[in-house]
């Protein structure tokens, strides 16, 4: 699931479905997302350092995965497609 500005950029809806080759982890999921939607490259993680942009967080299955190593396996429910990986932009300005 993507933040609104990234949906506009990629011209997609809130949720996109991706085929991710095993092992399914944050790195491979984001690699697959950027391969399918290259206009998103650099918007979620820095082009050079590959670090997550600080105002974005990764949630899944009611867990905060933002600080998990990029090669840590994602929950089985995400890998099997039952649950979404949520990419959430910080809410600010009010």
């Amino acid at each position, binding site marked *: 699931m993507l933040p609104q500005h*990234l949906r*506009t950029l990629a011209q997609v809806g809130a949720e996109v479905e991706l085929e991710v080759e095993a092992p399914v982890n944050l790195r491979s999921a984001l690699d697959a997302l950027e*391969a399918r*939607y*290259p*206009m998103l490259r650099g918007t*979620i993680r820095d*082009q050079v350092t590959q670090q997550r*942009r600080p105002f974005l967080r990764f949630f899944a299955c009611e867990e905060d995965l933002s600080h998990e190593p990029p090669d840590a396996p994602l929950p089985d429910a995400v890998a099997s497609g039952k649950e979404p990986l949520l990419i959430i*932009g910080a809410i600010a300005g009010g």
Partner: protein
Amino acid sequence: MPFRVDNHWEKAMSKVRVLVGTRKGAFILTADGKREKWDVSGPHFAGWEMYHVKGSPADPNRLYASQSSGWFGQLIQRSDDGGKTWHQPGTPPGEVPAPGPPKAASNKFVYDASDATGRPLTTHQWYDGTQHPWEFKRVWHLEPSLTEPNTVYAGVEDAAIFRSTDGGENWQELSGLRGHGTGPKWQPGAGGMCLHTIILDPSNPERMWIAISAAGAFRTDDAGKSWKPINRGLRSQYIPDPNAEIGHCVHHIAMNTSRPGVLFMQKHWDVMRSDDAGDNWKEISGNLPTDFGFVIDVHAHEPETVYVVPIKSDSEHFVPDGKLRVFRSRTGGNEWEALTNGLPQRDCYVNVLRDAMAIDSLDKCGVYFGTSGGQVYASADAGDSWAPIVRDLPAVLSVEVQTLP
């Protein structure tokens, strides 16, 4: 026998396109040469900070835009049809991305630290005087080549200059600037350590000028391979050595293309000019009510006619006395007249940022500027009278204008 194009015919047939970058999107304002009735298109890239939008002099339908966000980083957008449609270079509109490694690299700005062409990525001064790593943050200014639509320069924060020769798809740093020796002494201004001004010399493709807040002005005479500081004559009371070689907070530089050796500068405080391509500067603030400001620009046909918008001070970023006044000098500086006809003269407290003024090349030339309050004002008579094109845009970051046939 000289042939003179009739002015009325020229105005009827010509067109101007004003490119406005704001804190929440880009807008394109178009009118015929009379510049009275305007069409407004936008917001393009709604919700994003559009630091700069500029067209190619070699192909007016080729536009480049810097799209930035605190959440999502930097993007580069390009239009090949005058702003009707846009795409990120490397991802053409309508093309289904192929499987495999992503093609788009248009937002990949990597400082060149390679042995072959680069310079070591040293540190620069931080606000507190300690050293700080060089980090790419955003593109402040895009300067398309005068002759090649696919060549464009980018001025970025932390300060460096990049060049693309493939329409913005790939970028290479001209690392001689960052690495020429004074880099570790550069420090950020309040808005960041940004390279915000790039001027190309139409008479000499090897020469260009850039300016950095708060390092100063620099010039290359070999197409960007090597650079030298050109700050002699600048005096800044807020640095330990007011006459230092670098460390000056240059806000903007402007030039009339018919006279490339003469430059006009709005420094943090002080309005300056150079008659020798930047080797020496002298102050021309004269009778301005305050010589703090951001924008400066030069008349399209009268190279001694200069425009500034004085701002009260560096701690009060709004126009003085509640009056929005453009000041014009017809004598190359020192003697300034306030231009107020059509501009608010009471209860006005807006700012005009460094890239937010532009001048078209019609006769009489048009002058445009945008404010932090979201107004874009236009004058179709070189500043004698003004009218708002739009009043209620988001805060304006940049204004450029194209004069179209």
